[in-house]
């Protein structure tokens, strides 16, 4: 059924694409003379299209905040954790969770970071979240270690990458098929049983190119489970690309097939600690989490077609992602006669005899006796798919005597989540979880499915020093919810949403090195298929104003932003509320404003040694504009003027290096201000804040030329650990000090 549907849509999208191309071809034919595009330039052009931002070292005229972290920067620290990469990007707010970045929580410009559900996460320009429309929470996140570029896009240009346009987009770029024989073997080991093996090899023979790349990563985990046990993880990722270049007289084309498989098995938990236990040992894990385990597999098939002529190019991507996950984890006490949430218990274990008793059971120092003292472990088993076809056209035209850069795109996307949740009941007996013998109970059993058409049109015209861009994005979302539990056939919701999102931006070039930018666009976040239609979509008007300077050696970008959110929308997941009902809440009008500063300069110390310095600073403030009472656990009773939770006022990252031809030493100092854990009063974490955190990471490498390269790195050099979050249950630490030594051999 789905395959049939997408086949029909595929035909339609291809028809649209060829209609556009034929128009372009016709318009182009008069001017077309001999085309002598060589293979390399076609590939360069194609590779650029796989990214959002170009690699231009000169002044970017991008009318919006766009940050590129290229392969060179990623290689400096060889980060495997996306959080650590993004801390250097202005305007990014992160709530850490497991310390390894297995399931990141990333937001931009004040958007709630929970499961990165408010940003578009893409890999090679394609939505990569498990089901971006139907279940936006990104429980799957691509392997950071294999990426060759990370791009962060905020502001008006985000209008090209839906459906979430309130915050922006994160595009992760995988390795391109190399032009000639090329390979790498990278092995490393480190503290807490960390080990990584990463290799790739690729080549291009005549018009045919291929690449195969694999990463294996594991760790024993830095947490110490009471009574012993593994708290680590194992991840695998393998990717293959096959590419065929076809150069022609009129057009050059690239065909590429990408196949990928990834899996993870991690003994991860949502259970944190009391503040007192955290102070004694932040890496402790209570025995009640001894069976917690996440197990997922992800597979991906993507076919890209790229065609380019003198003044146009069209990139078409057909994609299918499948994701299956089962997270078996402690949900809480069975309750009934006496009820307390794990968050309440761990927030104040000495409050009364109830909390004290439950705390003792969690830690295994007392056994479960009464029915309500049994522990419920949930297996949140979910199956997702995400598939679609998208085609993007770029066209340069002279119209009415003016240069136009026209961009348009159309996408048909389908995604689905099927939940098959179950629960099991355990007794805490002699500091071990023992089944109470009862049958596994079915919990949430449903399906959410979305078909979505998206289009965007954007035109940039250049008038002297002024580049003006106007665009619009349209989304038509056809969403379906069905309760799949027996006898619940009438529990369904069909919902269609249509929206047009305009954007306008301008860049004024002051000189070859400096320019000013301004942008305004409408932000939008759809509701999930099962949300009651009374829950509004999130909508906002986002403004930004700033300037750039780049003389090739020194660069500076300063951008102020103001997000005027007319209705803030949030939802409950286990990671935030400790419940999985996915209920969403209206938060009314909210203002978020801030300042983003990035700068870089390279000092030449000697003929051989440079000292690059860069910094990234973000100031953000936010406030609810109305007072209201909310059932959302991160809000509570809001008084106008309250700040958003998990949004630090100040964030700073300073990167220093010493770089020579053969060796380099790099240090990054990161400061993240304290964050409120609840916006208003009347909820468990009201008045609670995370601690401000300063972390220093270092890396160094020495290149033995044909014998390879040896590197060492230290994450959190000074071993400073603070509470990064008390959600969903109890205090959770940042990653402790971790050393790593590795060897890379390129061939």
């Amino acid at each position, binding site marked *: 059924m789905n395959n049939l549907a997408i086949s029909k849509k595929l035909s339609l999208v291809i028809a649209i694409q060829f209609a556009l191309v034929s128009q372009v071809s016709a318009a182009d034919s008069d001017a077309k003379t001999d085309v002598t595009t060589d293979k390399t330039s076609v590939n360069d052009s194609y590779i650029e299209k796989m990214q959002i931002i170009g690699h231009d070292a000169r002044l970017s005229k991008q009318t919006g905040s766009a940050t590129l972290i290229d392969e060179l920067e990623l290689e400096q620290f060889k980060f495997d954790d996306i959080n650590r990469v993004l801390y250097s990007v202005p305007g990014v707010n992160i709530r850490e969770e497991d310390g390894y970045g297995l399931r990141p929580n990333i937001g931009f410009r004040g958007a709630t970071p929970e499961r990165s559900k408010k940003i578009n996460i893409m890999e090679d320009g394609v939505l990569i979240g498990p089901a971006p429309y139907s279940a936006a929470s990104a429980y799957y996140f691509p392997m950071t270690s294999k990426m060759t570029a990370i791009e962060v896009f905020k502001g008006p240009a985000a209008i090209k990458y839906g459906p979430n346009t309130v915050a922006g987009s994160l595009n992760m770029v995988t390795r391109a098929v190399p032009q000639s024989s090329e390979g790498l073997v990278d092995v490393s080991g480190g503290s807490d049983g960390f080990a990584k093996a990463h290799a790739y090899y690729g080549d291009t023979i005549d018009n045919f190119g291929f690449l195969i790349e694999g990463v294996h990563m594991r760790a024993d985990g830095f947490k110490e489970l009471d009574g012993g046990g593994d708290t680590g993880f194992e991840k695998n990722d393998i990717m293959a690309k096959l590419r065929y270049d076809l150069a022609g007289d009129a057009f050059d084309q690239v065909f590429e097939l990408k196949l990928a498989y990834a899996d993870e098995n991690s003994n991860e938990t949502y259970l944190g600690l009391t503040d007192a236990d955290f102070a004694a040992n932040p890496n402790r894990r209570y025995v009640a989490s001894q069976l917690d385990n996440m197990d997922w597999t992800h597979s991906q098939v993507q076919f890209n077609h790229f065609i380019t002529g003198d003044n146009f190019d069209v990139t078409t991507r057909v994609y299918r992602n499948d994701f299956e996950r089962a997270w078996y984890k402690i949900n809480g006490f069975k309750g*009934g*006669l006496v009820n307390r949430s794990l968050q309440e218990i761990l927030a104040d274990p000495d409050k*009364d*005899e109830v909390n004290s008793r439950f705390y003792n059971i969690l830690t295994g120092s007392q056994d479960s006796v*009464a029915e309500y003292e049994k522990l419920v472990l949930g297996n949140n088993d979910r199956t997702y798919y995400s598939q679609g076809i998208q085609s993007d056209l770029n066209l340069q035209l002279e119209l009415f005597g003016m240069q136009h850069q026209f961009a348009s795109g159309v996408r048909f996307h389908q995604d689905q989540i099927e939940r098959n949740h179950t629960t099991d009941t355990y007794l805490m007996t002699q500091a071990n979880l023992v089944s109470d013998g009862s049958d596994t109970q079915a919990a949430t059993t449903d399906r959410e499915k979305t078909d979505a058409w998206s289009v965007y049109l954007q035109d940039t*015209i250049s008038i002297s020093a002024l580049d003006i861009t106007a665009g619009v994005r349209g989304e038509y979302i056809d969403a379906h919810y069905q309760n799949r539990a027996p006898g619940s056939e009438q529990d369904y919701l069909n919902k269609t949403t249509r*929206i047009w999102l305009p954007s306008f931006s301008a860049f004024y070039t002051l000189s070859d090195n400096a320019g000013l930018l301004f942008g305004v666009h409408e932000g939008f976040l759809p509701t999930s298929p099962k949300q009651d239609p009374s829950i509004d979509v999130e909508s906002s008007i986002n403004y930004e104003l700033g300037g750039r300077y780049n003389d090739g050696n020194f660069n500076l970008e300063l951008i102020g932003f103001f997000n005027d959110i007319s209705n803030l929308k949030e939802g409950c997941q286990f990671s935030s509320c400790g419940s999985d009902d996915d209920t969403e809440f209206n938060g009314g009008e909210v203002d978020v404003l801030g300042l983003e500063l990035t700068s870089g300069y390279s000092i030449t110390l000697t003929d051989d040694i440079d000292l690059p310095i860069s910094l990234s600073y973000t100031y953000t403030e936010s406030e609810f504009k109305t007072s209201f009472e909310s059932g959302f656990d991160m809000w509570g009773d809001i008084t106008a003027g309250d700040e958003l939770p998990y949004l630090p006022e100040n964030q700073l990252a300073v990167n220093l290096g010493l770089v020579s031809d053969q060796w380099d030493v790099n240090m990054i100092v990161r400061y993240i201000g304290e964050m409120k854990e609840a916006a208003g009063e009347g909820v468990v974490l009201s008045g609670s804040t995370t601690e401000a955190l300063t972390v220093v990471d270092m890396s160094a490498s020495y290149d033995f030329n044909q014998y390879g390269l040896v590197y060492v790195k230290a994450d959190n050099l000074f071993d400073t650990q603070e509470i990064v979050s008390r959600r969903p249950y109890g205090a959770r630490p940042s990653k402790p000090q971790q050393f790593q030594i590795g060897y890379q051999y390129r061939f």
Partner: protein
Amino acid sequence: MLSQPRYSLLSIALTAALLSGCNESTSSDAGADYGNQDNTTSDFDQKALIANLVDGVITPTFEQFVSVSNQQVSDINAYCTAAIAFEQDSSDNTSLTQASDTAQQSWRNTISVWQQVEMMQLGPLLNDDGALRNKIYSWPVTSRCGVDLDVVSFENNDINGVPYDITSRTPARKGLVALEYLLFNPSFEHSCTGTVTPAGWDNRTDDDRRVARCEFAAEAAKDINHNAQQLLIQWSGDDGYGTSLKQAGETGSSFATVHEAVNKLSDALFYIDSVTKDGKLATPLGLFANSCGTSVCVEDVESPIAKHSIENITRNLEALDALFSGKEGLGFDDYLIDENDADTATELRERIATALANSRSYQTSLSDALVSDEAKVTATHSDVKAVTDKLKNEFINSLALELPQTSAGDND
């Protein structure tokens, strides 16, 4: 005539302006079972139902609890006077026994009203994880050793160097649970089995221990009465929860709709499911895990020392009956009839009456019945389950109400 650049700019601006006018639109259709129905369809006066339950049922019960808890203070003080006199050999055993019996009866009167209040857990009794409720009655959480320790701490007016303040003590060390232990326990030995024991207790005479326990009981009774008054204050008055229930749907009310407030009252009824049925009957019957594993366990009945468990259950059922029928005024039964579900109204009335008759027919305590006539207790459980099954299904569905989370699954 416009120049070409101006023409382009104008066209971009017009396009943007035109498109910005296309706002978001959402349309939907839902199945009959999707979500919670917002309200019922009849013109039943739900506001009148709330007003009657608040003014005619709940407020009088809360007021009665203030009254009986006040009497309890007097009766325990009198018992303490008798105990002191007895210790000083200035009175005889008969006077002491009479004072003790009066104090015990006063506790029974107080817990009997409280068991009706238990069925009316709303607003101030639920806030902060039921903090106020737990201060008055912490069951099933008890701490006999904790009470023994506090008897001595109160006597010495010292908690780790700080003057003793009962208001800051944890719930299981005070309240009606502690009073039962202090007034009914025939043994004067302490109940601590660990290394921490009440200082000097083992070296004291029973008469001295009686006085110490009684004086702490008097303090606990005073605290109960104080908390009972707090309950009434937070319930009644212009800013009270009862008033906000009655003003549901009005501007400034914390309830957006009247039906939302009706749902709060309906939530309270499900105490009969998660506490009365599961906690007071299924647990000691061994249908749920208990202190004996999963066999019959007399240790886990409510009010085991005073042997007041079945009376407690009876009071729960009487309060359920009052809330369901509205006594003399509008009740949930009238609402069901108005919603064309007279069958459910009748069946629920009958099932409550059956369960009440069963509980009133006990000739022995629940503990004794568990040993001598387990079938009778099982029948009581079945009678109560017959009520809760009806509440969870027809009652909820006919009145478009939402089931509270604690009763969402069937724990049976």
